[in-house]
């Protein structure tokens, strides 16, 4: 004796947030029922396990039917099959596209390919995020990537419009897409201390200042790629380290400005040339795609680590970078002010963000 068929369809589609989350997290129906029982919903509503099972199955079915629509969130609003209030729709979409920072950290900068997808079980084991959920998140990344790849205009705005995501989530997706597109290396041991949000912040800076869209939003090209011309121009910055006079002049200017203002002055003074070389070399190399990938690892190796070993504080860092940037403008023979500002603005905020334990 068994219930062979059991369905419930409401004119307004009923969706339980809690069950939705369980579904998104990749719980099986039975596990979800267990979690719900533990959650005490049964006592609350005088229900039995059977009722809970029936409800969970039903909700899971609804979600599965909705999933196809969630792949194109814009469709959710004008589809006719499910009558879902707008606030519910927004909730469904937002949660569907939400991701685990732990998971995204693992795939950030990786190619969103089938190969990567195959390795998801490892990622799942490592992060503790269920494989189902990993797959959904991965597919989300890939889907967003594919759609915005071919679109013109500002990246964040495109994502927000096409996937109806809230602002913050759209920004995060922009970062993911940006990272995936430029294949930034994020998995090296030295970078493991950085969180997704650190990278997302940096990505935001890069998108806003270093891409073509940053200069002219009307441009044909999109936000996903760095401004090639700018990268070319960056090579000119090399003069700051190749010209001995300039380098010394730059150093003395910075030292003068910082003297007495920082406790790590001596270390700074001693290390200045190394640090400056590091930053300028990164700039000069960015024209090579491979070096773009190593951008973050270079920043850490060439700049952050030396500073950290000298026990700079964030305040020290801020002071140094501010003066380091500004002093260059005073240099007589240095002509590339615009490029320098554009470069250092991003570098400064990225380093400041990345400078933590």
């Amino acid at each position, binding site marked *: *004796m*068994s*219930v*062979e*068929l*059991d*369905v*419930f*369809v*409401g*004119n*307004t*589609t*009923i969706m339980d947030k809690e069950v939705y989350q369980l579904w998104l997290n990749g719980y099986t129906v039975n596990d979800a029922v267990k979690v719900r029982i533990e959650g005490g919903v049964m006592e*609350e*509503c*005088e*229900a*039995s396990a*059977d*009722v*809970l099972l*029936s*409800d969970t*199955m*039903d909700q899971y*079915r*609804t979600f*599965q*039917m909705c999933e196809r629509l969630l792949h194109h969130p814009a*469709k959710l609003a*004008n*589809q*006719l*099959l*499910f*009558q879902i*209030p*707008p606030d519910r729709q927004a909730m469904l979409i937002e949660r569907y596209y939400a991701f685990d920072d732990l998971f995204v950290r693992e795939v950030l900068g990786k190619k969103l390919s089938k190969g990567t997808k195959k390795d998801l079980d490892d990622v799942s084991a490592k992060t503790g995020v269920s494989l189902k959920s990993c797959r959904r998140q991965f597919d989300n990344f890939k889907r967003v990537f594919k759609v915005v790849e071919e679109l013109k205009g500002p990246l964040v705005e495109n994502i927000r419009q096409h996937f109806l995501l809230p602002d913050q989530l759209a920004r995060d997706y922009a970062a993911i897409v940006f990272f995936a597109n430029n294949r930034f290396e994020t998995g090296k041991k030295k970078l493991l201390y950085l969180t997704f949000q650190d990278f997302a912040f940096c990505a935001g800076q890069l998108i806003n200042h270093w891409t073509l869209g940053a200069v002219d939003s009307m441009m044909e090209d999109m936000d996903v790629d760095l401004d090639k011309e700018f990268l070319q121009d960056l090579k000119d910055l090399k003069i700051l380290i190749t010209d001995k006079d300039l380098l010394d002049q730059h150093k003395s200017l910075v030292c003068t400005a910082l003297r007495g203002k920082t406790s790590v002055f001596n270390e700074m003074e001693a290390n200045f040339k190394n640090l400056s070389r590091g930053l300028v070399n990164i700039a000069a190399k960015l024209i090579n795609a491979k070096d773009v990938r190593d951008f973050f690892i270079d920043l850490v190796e060439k700049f952050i680590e030396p500073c950290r070993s000298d026990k700079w504080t964030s305040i020290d860092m801020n002071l140094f970078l501010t003066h380091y940037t500004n002093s260059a403008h005073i240099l007589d023979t240095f002509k590339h002010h615009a490029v320098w500002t554009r470069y250092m603005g991003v570098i400064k905020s990225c380093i400041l963000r990345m400078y933590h334990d």
Partner: protein
Amino acid sequence: MPGKLKAKIVAGRHLPVMDRASDLTDAFVEVKFGNTTYKTDVYPKSLNPQWNSEWFKFEVDDEDLQDEPLQITVLDHDTYSANDAIGKVYIDIDPLLCSEAATVISGWLPIYDTIHGIRGEINVLVKVDLFNDLNRFRQSSCGVKFFCTTSIPRCYRAIMVHGFVEELVVNEDPEYQWIDRIRTPRASNEARQRLIFLMSGELQRKIGLKVLEMGGNAVVGYLQCFDLEGESGLVVRAIGTACTLEKISTLPSTATHQSNSSPSKDMKDSPQAAPSTLGCRSTHSSPVHSASSRLSQGFSVSVPTLLFAGMKPRHRSSEAPRARQCRPVFGEEVPGIPLSSGPPTPLRAQTFSSFSPSKSYSRQSSSSDTELSLTPKTVRMFLCPSTPALESISSSLPSTHMPCHLRPGMASRSSTPPPLHVSQSDTAMLRKSVSFSEELLLAASGMGSGGSAGKEAGPLKALLRQQTQSALEQREYPFFTLTSFPSGFLLHVGGVVSARSVKLLDRIHNPDEPETRDAWWEEIRQEIKSHAKALGCHAVVGYSESTSICEEVCILSASGTAAILSSRFMQDGPLDTEHRFEEVVPPGCGFCHIPYDELNIPFPAQLTYCYSCRRSKVPDVLFTTIDLPADANITGKGCLIQARLCRTKKKAQGEGNATAISNLLPFLEYELHTQLMNKLKLRGMNALFGLRIQISVGETMLLGLASATGVYLTALPGPGGIQIAGKTPSDITYEQHISNMQKKINDTIAKNKDLYEINPPEVVEEIIGSPIPEPRQRSRLFRSQSESSDEVSELDLSHGKKDAFVLEIDDTDAVEDIHALLTDSPTPQGFYSCNTEIMPGIQNWTSAIQMFTSVRVFRLNNANLTNQGLNKIFSDLCENLLKSLYFKLRSMVPCCLCHLNFTVAIPEDELIQVAVTAVAMSFDKEQILENGKQSGEKTLTKAITENDEQLQFNLELNPESSHANPLSSPKGLSEVGSHPSARDRCSSWIEQLRLKAHTIRRGSVKTTSSMEKASPLPEGRSRSLRSNRSYSGTSVAVVKMTPLSFIPGAKIIKYLGIINMFFIRETTSLREEGGVSGFLHSFIAEVFAMVRAHVAALGGNAVVSYSMKECVFMENPNKNQAQCLINVSGDAVIFVRESELEAASVQPQSTTHTSNGGEGT
């Protein structure tokens, strides 16, 4: 005369990918009407084509316009092979044919394929230019409005209610035609869908013609059903109530009262109670009749164990011949009741009301004796005479109530075999129909008939009733599919009448002459008619018909509520005087105000009603198939009551099978009835509304499901408890067991009374008891006589009254039954449920509604189940389903599941299918408490001061208009405009005035209290409106669906036409679609989506009176296949939130409003 149909194909969207190579589609559209087809251009390589076609014009007869749907087919163009169909859209253009409905169909409609479901949407524009048809021989009936709603639609006024219309058309089922063997499932499904569309169109047209013939312009309560008879064909049949409706142009404030006004308000409007309700009690008379004549040997099985409180028309069942003429029957009973002669003793209903249901079976004589003795258990209904009370009554009375007195009489009757034995031939057996009438006996309302005023009124009343009756008798069937009525239309309610008939299906040879099916229904309707007559009623309301088919056996069922209606809406030709007269006739509060009515209407001896009424004023229990009248006076809240039953049956073929089924039916019906009674008592309630008994037949079992909404009618006596009687009192453990059970039952009753806010017995009795002195006083003044000492005694009488209901445990079955009784789990906190339109006792709905459909199929793997086992399974299935619903909807608490409509079916052997469609409506909790209190008070005060109130009202009315006079002498008088009565009216009115003045001078406390109590109610109402306003902010462009005829907190401003859709869905990849549940889930969702889309295209924003009339599900998991047919219907409407309306109308007053608001904050 021709009309011009114009269609334009605008665009498509979300089309499926038809070309795998390009992931795109080359779509074009065929537009077909009748035999004409147009095509659009191919829109290449797009999933969102923009055709923007020209207007395709079809010049056709309006007859075709009514019959045919516009068929739109979307195809994928393929250069090399045949074009692939993407899907179809059928558009019913009927709503465009009525000037008052929709004018254009425009919007996105889902493209539907019977194999793939919804595949994208198409945007179309459809218009109709119709020329006036002056041909009187026309075959079309354009312009007749159809409504599924079983009440007068909200924005219309009934000018006239013409009566019953029915029609059926038959055809061969395409699924069973030879061609089906060689065509694809898709083609077959589409042929079927199209055929049914055509047939319903034709049916509607034919019904429309009948309506026009009758002089009406609308069909209300239109109920269309399909009988899929398999090999023997496809029957589409419909019934409805023809009316002449008039659109209410403005929005009078009174129009709202139907929806959610508090009863009290209505009460105030209605100083006069309607005529007395017929007290009634259920009997089962199941006269088996052969094709030629009814078998009369029915006899009361249970009689030896039954004690009747007085006379019951049910005895008629043992005297079948006489039973057919209702009036003589009543007369015949007179001897049993000493009161009938009308001694001036005003007898109160309560003293009599302790009837208990008696089940009398009339069965075929040959077998009946033995079978009857096999009846597993008997329900013993005791009239427990409330001793002190009875004794205090005039001497003749008590004796009738004493069981011992009655018993001999009964016994003699029952022991005497019925005189008539008609032997039946075997073939006749098959055609025999088993029918039952749950007759509500006319509870005699004894009256002090001495009063002159009353006497005067009586004949007039009678005359009127005769008029009404004759008006009704002109009609073939005085049936009404309505379940709620304009105020003043429904005068008396008799009780439930039902008839069933078991038929063997045979092939319909000539579809154009569906005579057999017509004859079958005619037979049943005649049966119903005669049952109603037997109850002394001339009409049947809340009438519906249904079938259950299994293989070649078909059970036809019809049921309704016998009633007496006012002539007001039925008279031909406007009688102006009378009309004005009746404008002020109160709505049917007579339904509950029996004491009042009885005092004011003497029933002349020649009227059978009066005889019965004298004996008892109200029934102890009232069963009806209609909704609770808006103005009925109730105590506490109502609840859903279900009786569920499963009976195994041997597999059989043909005639043998039909015989077996018809033999089982009476038992099934009897037990369902017993269960209902028990459960009703268990909840401490005394009346059932919306009773719907569904009997479903399968190969090896019969399922019976009776659903109704129980309420405590204030006008009826409180139900007694249930007492359990053991059979072997010697055994001590047994005794203990019994007393345990008794305790449990008592506890449950107490708990239920609490739960449903049914006032504790003391209060209840007070309610019942207190009105007595009041009317009496009045009657005294009125009649200046009929004073007597028994006044006091009557009071006591009601206090002492306690009737009990005894269940005898004589075998294990009975024990289990009692257990089963107690297994119904109470609804969780914050939930209420009912199967009627509105939940008795709740008014303050918020605008949050959620309509849903839930389907469950249960497989019985164990082939050898006992009846008890089956019962339990079935009952658990229903209970669990309800529990799931409560859980699902927990976020809406406090809420009520309204219009819970259960449908059971046995799709195949060992499968039980239960489908539920209902709407969950939230209400305001805080107000419910207040209102509960208020209504509690209200009922009390009302009971006490009713008469005063009415007088008060008269007083107020007096200076305004003279035609208000008749108010003072309620009843028949008001219905007659004849001169002779005028004087009497006047005099009695003056008398009342005098009385009124008297009371005021005395400074009657009661009068004051009534005024005080009256005020909070409107206040509460306005508050609820306010709360609605706050909720309405969330409204978005959605289509609401509800099985109810209204939308809380909103006003329906336009009816756009009927929605009647039929879909078939089939799959050959069941597993891939998520199994049976996944398949059905998406199908139901698709059906909802299509209904919503079509309503939106008509310009509507809601469907009311929505129902899923058919949900036939078949599966073959081994072949990975499943098929499902769904038929839904409803009324497309435009509604406007009341808050918006107010905002618009209240504009000028906004200043005061805002200032108020400012103070408030």
